């Protein structure tokens, strides 16, 4: 955490256009040379309710939303002003202020819409302003918006005022608005923007110490979410078929792909349920297309049986699981990492699948490409496991990360000559014949001459005929299971491993984590090392096959390791212990499952509480030893 950063929060009600406004503003910051990270907080309702988007921007790399924030743009809640709603929900108008003040840093800035909010209604507002040295701008954003257009445009007025205070060039914002807005509303918006900017510049003291640093990108960046990373990774890898059923937060990937697939010559299918969705992906893949499906918790539970079907028929399949807080429908719009074991082990029989858990938007892209490659080369399902936080949060990623050739290769498919020369059994092509080292048998595709065989969810012999012969069973099981060893070897040999190690290599203490906690952990490591501790962190992405060797050597020389994860039962810690068979005496867990992601200070506090008791574990976090106290 540095002071040389802007963490801008726009707060109001769902349906107030906060999303689109903040998207544009985040881009404006990025175009001004800053690194950007966005975080979206919203309740599970369509309109009204307290919601905010936070944008963190700095010269240096930003990896998490950071701790607290320093600029609040508080809009009213248009929905709450509906008289009926007001009666039911109480006076929500002041919520954009009251709900957000606790996390505003000392010396921070508040812009509030005096056309909608009345600070007199917040009993201790003035005292708190004074005590925290906050700079308050009371602007009639609504009035200005109404004057030039419609009151919903008060967002734009807020952006104009923000730019005046932080010293951001209006040109950048104007250009973005011009590209993004339909003509009809563009002109009034531009007027509101300029008017509000001028008003603040002329009538207020803007020298309040919250500014954006001067910055320049070394490499041209783009602003994308983890969901974009997955969708673009899939499409670059030649995925042209997606089937799905909406469920938050998986819907993001589904809609992004659906928006583009027809233009890329692909097919998207919204179907009747998730069992169908996974089964469609299997059908398309069986016929020779690169296909995917996905869901979140409950929807993924429905995919359990098709998942096993893909394993035993050896149909390449990629599934996405975007976790939200469970069990059951849990908290639809809140992140958690509680589905790890569900994804690792769900479906009957021994699990035979690849599971990657990318830690940020860049990794989402890279690992999705790899997941497809492995699924198709090894004829095995791959799952991308990530969560609500990574789903919707946007980050700046260098454009060069995407610069790879598209990959239409669908893995080992026989030619018709191969078929002619190949052996047959009871008239059928020996699709499940084993003659390689990696467990992979070349497949024929429906429509290939002479290649017909039976793909069966029942145990089968080489030609697919159903068989309960004990020796055949062992041969087929061993062959299928051996794929994971071959995949582990392949992953180990990759020049860039999916696991990232951060901090001092010879550190005494370690932190282990997976998925979207990556950024917060790395920032916590910096903070801890600045404070004189000796800490390193490993973000593990490969959940299956598990990188035992890498994790073992990472933990070899440390005194103790803290496993940071967002669930109540330490699923990842148990997975590490189960896979390595070691380290039980060294591992402690820091758990959080209140619906909010870890912030760097949560981790710092947890670490210090565990290490020497010099801190209390942060609110709603819990420390637990591997062996149990």
């Amino acid at each position, binding site marked *: 955490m540095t002071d040389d950063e802007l963490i801008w929060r726009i707060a109001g009600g769902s349906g107030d256009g906060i999303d689109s406004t903040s998207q544009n503003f985040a881009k404006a910051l990025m175009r001004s040379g800053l690194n950007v990270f966005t975080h979206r907080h919203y309740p599970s309702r369509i309109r009204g309710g307290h919601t905010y988007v936070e944008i963190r921007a700095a010269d240096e790399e930003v990896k998490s939303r950071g701790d607290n924030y320093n600029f609040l743009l508080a809009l009213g809640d248009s929905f709450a002003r509906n008289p009926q709603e007001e009666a039911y929900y109480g006076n929500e108008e002041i919520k954009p202020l009251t709900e957000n003040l606790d996390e505003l840093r000392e010396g921070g800035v508040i812009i509030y819409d005096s056309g909608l909010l009345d600070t007199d209604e917040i009993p201790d507002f003035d005292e708190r302003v004074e005590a925290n040295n906050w700079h308050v701008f009371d602007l009639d954003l609504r009035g200005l918006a109404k004057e030039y257009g419609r009151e919903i445009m008060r967002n734009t007025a807020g952006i104009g005022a923000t730019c005046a205070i932080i010293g951001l060039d209006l040109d950048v914002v104007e250009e973005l608005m011009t590209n993004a807005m339909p003509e009809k509303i563009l002109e009034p918006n531009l007027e509101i923007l300029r008017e509000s900017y001028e008003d603040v510049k002329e009538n207020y003291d803007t020298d309040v110490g919250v500014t954006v640093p001067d910055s320049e990108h070394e490499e041209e960046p783009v602003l994308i979410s983890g969901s974009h990373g997955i969708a*673009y990774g899939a499409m670059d890898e030649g995925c042209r078929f997606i089937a799905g059923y909406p469920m938050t937060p998986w819907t993001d990937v589904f809609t992004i792909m659906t928006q583009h697939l027809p233009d890329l010559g692909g*097919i998207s299918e919204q*179907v009747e349920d998730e069992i169908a969705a996974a089964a469609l992906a299997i059908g398309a893949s*069986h016929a020779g297309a690169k296909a995917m499906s996905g869901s979140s918790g409950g929807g993924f539970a429905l995919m359990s049986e098709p998942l096993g079907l893909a394993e035993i028929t050896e149909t390449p399949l990629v599934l996405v699981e975007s976790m939200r807080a469970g069990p059951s429908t849990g908290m639809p719009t809140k992140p958690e990492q509680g589905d790890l074991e569900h994804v690792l082990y769900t479906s009957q029989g021994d699990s035979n699948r690849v599971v990657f858990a990318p830690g940020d938007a860049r990794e989402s892209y890279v690992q999705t490409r790899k997941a497809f490659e492995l699924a198709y080369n090894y004829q095995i399902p791959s799952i991308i496991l990530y969560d609500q936080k990574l789903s919707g949060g946007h980050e700046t990623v260098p454009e060069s990360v*995407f610069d790879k050739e598209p990959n*239409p290769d669908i893995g080992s498919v026989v030619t018709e000559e191969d078929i002619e020369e190949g052996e047959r059994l009871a008239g059928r092509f020996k699709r499940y014949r084993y003659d390689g080292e990696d467990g992979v048998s070349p497949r024929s595709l*429906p429509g290939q001459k002479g290649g*017909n065989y039976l793909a069966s969810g029942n145990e089968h012999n080489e030609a697919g005929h159903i068989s309960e012969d004990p020796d055949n069973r062992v041969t087929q099981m061993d062959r299928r299971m051996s794929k994971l060893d071959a995949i582990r070897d392949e992953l180990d040999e990759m020049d860039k491993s999916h696991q990232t190690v951060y901090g001092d290599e010879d550190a005494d203490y370690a932190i282990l984590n997976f998925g979207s906690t990556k950024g917060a952990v790395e920032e916590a490591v910096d903070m801890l090392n600045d404070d004189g501790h000796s800490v390193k962190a490993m973000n593990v992405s490969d959940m299956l096959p598990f990188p035992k060797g890498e994790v073992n050597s990472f933990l070899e020389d440390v005194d103790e390791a803290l496993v940071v994860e967002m669930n109540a039962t330490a699923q990842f810690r148990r997975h590490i212990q189960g896979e390595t068979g070691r380290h039980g005496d060294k591992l402690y867990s820091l758990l959080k499952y209140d619906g909010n992601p870890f912030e760097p200070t949560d981790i710092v506090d947890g670490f210090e509480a565990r290490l020497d008791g010099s801190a209390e574990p942060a609110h709603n976090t819990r420390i637990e030893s591997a062996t149990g106290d």
Partner: protein
Amino acid sequence: MSVFNAIDEERDIDVNEFTPSLEPQATWCPGCGDFGVLKALKQAMPEVGRTPDETLLVTGIGCSGKLSSYFQSYGFHSIHGRSLPVARAAKLANPDLEVIAAGGDGDGYGIGGNHFMHTARENHDMTYIVFDNEIFGLTKGQTSPTSPKGHKSKTQPHGSAKSPIRPLSLALTSGASYVARTAAVNPNQAKEILAEAMAHDGFAHVDFLTQCPTWNKDAKQYVPYIDVQDSDDYDFDVRDRREAAEAMHEAEDALYEGKVLTGRFYIDDERPSYQQEKQATGDMPETPLAERYFDDDYEWERSYDLLDRHK
């Protein structure tokens, strides 16, 4: 060059091509109606003009699901109730394939009922054969969605309180563009109907009455059937939805009164298939998706061209 050469082939096709050269021992009970479906399907294939390699047969789970083991073609023996979603995606990915889905009444009308409704509604160009023996065969004789009211089984010892499902009406109201019923005891009609169903562009549903001598002693198939088209008593326009609906209701009532009516109940040749509808909205490529991965000249559009919108 396509890898799917089989599809371009035109030649005379022999019934025997659909029998695996070393036929696996069929595990169906002696006298099982499933043999009748297998035979009718094999005999229909030469009429349709499709080879085993051009054909994908997707089955569910049950005695009926084993059809794909004894029928020589590309086969996919999937999971209970889910043959339709697997089959329809294969058809979308490669529309040149002849795609058939098959399963039992439990499989198709029970656990897979939702898929039945939606596949019919979307009018996917494929044929769906439901082995309707009014019983769960493979799991040893439990009541099925088509078992008559009052039917006694181990799971309904006092007799089922449920009225049976009406498969023909259900198919029609869901949107199937071809609906027929045939019976294993009537091989000639069965063959004709299956051939017609496969030739039909759109979702063709065939409720195929099969006997299960092992678990269902009241097999109606021993009752003489009446072909609705040949009978003077039944005069309706098979292309008129309302008239068809009425005929179906009559047939469905009559079945439980011991009168077996079979034949074509509804044919809509006008309605475009799902694939055609989707192509019309620009949501579906003209050339088969599956071909693209083998076409060296195909230019793969790169999704990172989309990145401009993120700058």
